[in-house]
């Protein structure tokens, strides 16, 4: 009897372990699926889109939990067109033109990104002061390190999509976050990502219904809180949920960047020729094409 009881206890423990492992695997699978679905939605937003965005950066001061800019923000306004390519739409082509400040007006950048980590990113820069298109040496996805986007606190890593296979995900919590139901998902970089990230861990607050981010928190290589991102003014545009106001607070540099999407249109037909070097120098062609897309601005 005692033996049976022991066996029963052992079986129970084994079953419990199995259940725990299964739950853990299910948790990981679910987290991976959630992140992939969110990433896919992000790619859909970028597939045939035109945005006019304002990127503002300032040093901030803090009183209790309220923070404010303590200097006049540096403001950049840019218009960007992007389109996804490839069988899984994981390759992308995009062109961005700076409209403000006056000192940088007219600078244009054309970039081709490939999902294949061994394939070089291709980029060309049009410097209005130079009056010439310059090819940039970008390196490959494998060896590229994060760099600041237009001098802001956002880095190229913060803007990336399509790299969900480079992290281990896990749902830490779920429940109400403000007036939305969320999953809180932890992302730990795999070795392939660890060598090129400045983060040791990321936490994502994912809206369960919309599959959009409401908040993200990153930690530096020493595990200290690094950047906090909040996503506001989330609107449904052409059946896609889009945050039109994203703020990144860098807790270490005490600087913040805010990106407001002033106007956006998605799922529009962008001709392939527009995403070529011609757009950087052929202003008449560029404006003619942009005018036809701006009609759909929301």
């Amino acid at each position, binding site marked *: 009897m005692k033996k049976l009881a022991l066996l029963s206890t052992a079986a129970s423990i084994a079953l419990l372990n199995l259940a725990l492992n299964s739950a853990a695997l299910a948790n990981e699978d679910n987290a991976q699926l959630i992140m992939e679905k969110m990433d896919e939605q992000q790619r859909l937003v970028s597939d045939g889109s035109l945005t006019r965005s304002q990127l503002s950066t300032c040093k901030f001061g803090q009183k209790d939990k309220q923070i404010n800019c303590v200097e006049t923000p540096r403001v950049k306004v840019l218009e960007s067109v992007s389109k996804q390519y490839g069988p899984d739409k994981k390759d992308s082509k995009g062109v961005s033109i700076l409209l403000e400040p006056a*000192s940088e007006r007219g600078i244009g950048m054309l970039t081709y990104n490939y999902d294949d980590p061994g394939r070089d990113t291709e980029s060309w820069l049009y410097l209005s002061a*130079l009056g010439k298109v310059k090819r940039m040496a970008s390196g490959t996805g494998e060896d590229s390190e994060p760099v600041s986007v237009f001098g802001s606190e956002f880095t190229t890593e913060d803007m990336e999509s399509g790299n969900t296979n480079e992290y281990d995900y896990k749902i830490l919590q779920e429940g109400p976050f403000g007036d939305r139901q969320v999953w809180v998902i932890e992302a730990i970089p795999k070795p392939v990502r660890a060598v090129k990230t400045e983060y040791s861990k990321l936490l994502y607050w994912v809206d369960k219904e919309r599959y959009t981010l409401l908040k993200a928190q990153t930690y530096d290589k020493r595990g200290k809180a690094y950047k906090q991102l909040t996503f506001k003014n989330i609107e449904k545009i052409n059946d896609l949920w889009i945050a039109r106001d994203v703020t990144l607070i860098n807790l270490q540099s005490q600087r913040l960047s805010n990106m407001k999407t002033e106007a956006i249109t998605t799922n529009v037909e962008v001709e392939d020729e527009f995403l070529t070097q011609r757009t950087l120098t052929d202003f008449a062609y560029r404006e003619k094409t942009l005018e036809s897309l701006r009609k759909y601005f929301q």
Partner: protein
Amino acid sequence: MKHRNRILALGFCCASALPALSDDLLATDDFAFDTSEIEVSKPHWTDGFKTTLEHSHTQIPAEPSREQSSVRLEYESNIADGWYAKLDTRYRYFWDKDDLAEARGDAYGRNKLQRAWLQYSRGACTATAGRQTLIWGTVEGTFVTDIVTPFDYTEQLLTDYGNVRLAQDMLVGECFVANTQIQAFYTPEAETDIFQHHPLSFTIAPTVPAIHLDQDAKEEWGLRYKWQGGRYDISLMYAQLYDNTATPVINNNSGSTLNDDDANYLPEIIASLMNTGSLPPGLSVEAELAKFDLVGVASTIAVGRLLLKAEAAFRDNQLLRFSPERTERYDAALGFEYTTSDNHIFNGGVWATHLKNDKLEQRDIQVITMGWRHSYLNDNLVMSVLGNWASNPRFATATILAEYQWSDYWSSAFALSLADLDESSKDLPVASAEKAATLSIKYEF
């Protein structure tokens, strides 16, 4: 895996701890930033205008300095479907201590219409007519094929690269088909006034008529075919051009008795002037603007973080100073640019010229350039170093440049230049000073 199991075990064994953890992650008591405090810039009809005020001072020990102030007005806009216009004009004032003002005799102001063009795009092609710059070539700092729009040497050291050029009145047509670009330009009357703002002439002896370097160029035209792939591109170029400045040449009117084994007649002319006060019989010195053909090829290859650039060109009918000789000229340049993982940019280049005339003592010229560039302080400070070395005339220069963006409107730049020049290069109208410091302050809105 250990971490995952530890979290799960914590959740299974210690259910009472859950609410606290849950509260930590789901609480909404983060740092709050009221984003409405940032004003959103809306499109405005004035967006096409840009004004730049700038003052620039170059201090050269024991020599005339350079001191210029400028106001620049730019306007560009889409004026109708497929039509785009750009205007860029800059008024510069040369203060009385400026070396160009001293050469002229007094302070003066001058307006430079840098760009005034109208562009029309239809289908795969675009035409641009009016005052504009056209930049060819790939290896920066060399002039192998980049000679269509010459440099304006009246500009200060820190002038924008695009603005430092002497714009031309031209018609440029371009067609884009798949990965190829075909470009053609036509200039009815080329601008060549690259050194001075007043008639430039010099006298070699009282008995010899003054030589006027102001020579009018006539029409120029050219074609460029460019093919661009993912990692590399290649351009083929042909153009009929005029030199960017006149060259004093010897005109052998009736056949002189001078030794014609040497292309440079200057020593014999000087000897004749010193002995007789006049040029050798049958010779005269005149300024001439060479008209020549250019055939060139240029390519850029991207290999990871490395960018390799190469170009080569042939020019016929090149004039030689104080010589009746003509020569063919071959140029080649190789350059690289390497961006490190933390965004330090290193670049370098070698430019070699060969003059195909056996009578010349110096038939080969080499120029080497090296540079470094990096941004600091959230991209507000850009530091760069540039070094040049040339074999003939022999000179070496080094420039350290710091550019700081104080705000969206204010910026300043400070450059320190050192040059090591031999005696012959000191006579060049564009020779660097041996030591110079330049400070520029700019306000753009």
